[in-house]
């Protein structure tokens, strides 16, 4: 039996995997990052950037508050006066918990993958509201590029620290780039604003020992895949069925691997049942096959919103491995 890492390699290279890579099994995600990212159920709070967040009780996640009173960037041309970029702590004490977690992991079996969120696009719209961010790309492109540069510089500081303290062999990086049916930006606009930014960040990781870039975007982004490959993404996690995954595998398999196909909204919801999970897992495994594909819920962490769903999906993927390998 192949190790988790060996099996992943076989899937990614079109070799001879002996089973499906089962969701996040190959990634040990290190959440103890000194990023200032918080998940505070049922609360309202302000983060290091000054962004106000709300997570209503009974709901699936948090959301930035973008009314006139709370929005951080009120005028993109004055963003330097309105935003204080929070520094990344570089000292060993701030990284001790992440390092300790990473040191416990058998890297022959698992990839040590620090968690990074939000991504460059999301950070822009968290600061100013998505409509303002998207219109600013047209109306004030130079100011947007300056803001993006500042976000990239902060992430490069983070990259330097994470390489020094954790020595990751993978990165698990979030940035949602679209809705379920299309990317937010045209490919041309994405290429102009966000491709260069991501190239800087991901190439730094690659040049400093990070073997795998796993990027989460649970959206449509089929039209951005060539850019994903160009910027160095190895695995696109969160790929939804609306992307026509078999077509993507045929076109780009070998250059990038697609991880998803199991829409969390259809499986991980209040009235879920093991039968629903089984049906979707069987369909996705049979449709997308054994190479360049990892069956996984589209959610951006190895967990589910409703108790038992993640485990039920894992169990069904094991069943499909037995049936199809």
């Amino acid at each position, binding site marked *: 039996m192949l190790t988790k890492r060996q099996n992943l390699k076989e899937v990614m290279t079109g070799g001879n995997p002996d089973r499906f890579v089962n969701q996040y099994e190959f990634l040990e995600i290190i959440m103890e990052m000194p990023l200032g990212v918080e998940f505070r159920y049922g609360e309202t709070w302000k983060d290091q950037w000054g962004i106000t967040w709300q997570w209503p009780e009974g709901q699936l996640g948090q959301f930035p508050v973008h009314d006139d009173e709370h929005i951080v960037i009120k005028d993109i041309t004055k963003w330097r006066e309105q935003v204080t970029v929070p520094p990344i702590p570089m000292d060993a004490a701030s990284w001790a918990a992440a390092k300790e977690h990473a040191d416990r992991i058998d890297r022959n079996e698992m990839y040590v993958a620090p968690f990074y969120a939000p991504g460059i696009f999301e950070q822009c719209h968290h600061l100013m509201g998505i409509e303002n961010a998207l219109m600013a790309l*047209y109306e004030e492109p130079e100011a947007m590029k300056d803001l993006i540069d500042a976000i990239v510089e902060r992430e490069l500081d983070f990259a330097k620290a994470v390489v020094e303290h954790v020595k990751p062999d993978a990165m698990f990086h979030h940035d949602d780039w679209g809705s379920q049916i299309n990317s937010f930006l045209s490919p041309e606009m994405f290429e102009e604003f966000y491709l260069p930014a991501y190239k800087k960040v991901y190439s730094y990781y690659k040049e400093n020992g990070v073997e795998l870039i796993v990027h989460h975007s649970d959206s449509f982004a089929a039209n951005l895949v060539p850019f994903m490959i160009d910027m160095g993404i190895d695995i696109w996690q969160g790929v939804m069925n609306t992307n026509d995954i078999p077509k993507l595998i045929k076109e780009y398999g070998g250059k990038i691997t697609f991880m998803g196909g199991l829409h969390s909204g259809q499986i991980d919801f209040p009235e879920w049942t093991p039968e629903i999970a089984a049906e979707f897992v069987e369909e996705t495994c049979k449709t997308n096959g054994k190479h360049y594909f990892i069956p996984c819920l589209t959610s951006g962490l190895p967990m589910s919103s409703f108790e038992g769903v993640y485990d039920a999906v894992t169990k069904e993927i094991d069943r499909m491995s037995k049936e199809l390998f």
Partner: protein
Amino acid sequence: MSKVAEIQEMVAKGKTKLIAGLVQEALDGGSQPKEILDAMIESMGVVGDKFSAGEIFVPEMLIAAKAMSKGVDVLKPLLAGDASTSLGTCVIGTVAGDLHDIGKNLVSMMLESAGFTMIDLGVDVPANKFVEVAKENNAVIVAASGLLTTTMPALKETSLALKDAGFTVIVGGAPVTQAYATEIKADGYAPDAGSAVTKAKELVK
């Protein structure tokens, strides 16, 4: 190219800084406010269709809507009291518990561009608030959205309360389907902002 045709093109291209001046030039040249407004509405119809077809993306739609809004600002004083320029009042919001507003905001802008008078209640709106504001403003249609599976019960409650009060309801959001819209007795469902305009206009005919 006539000035009105130029306005149409500049709306579609989202030339937000040029529109006010062009509308004023058209007025000075003798064009009627209603004629200019109709031209801009037509232009936004094309923008909505292109968005639904995936030919343009969210930023293009947003700046087109913003451009139109700048043009309407110039026309407003001249159109005041002219009932023929409005398709009626539409109350819009995301349902209780849901903070996701990009879809709602896009739909609101597109409906406004199509000629509805919009009252945007924002996010996390209880069902009784929708009903209260719709009554106060004699709304011809109420649009409600929810992005999370956990807020689908709130969407149902909102739709049923509005139907009980006699309003026409249109719903949308990522987990919403035509089947669900029918189940919760909504009059219409739209998968995206462009289609929402077509559906809303059809429902208020």
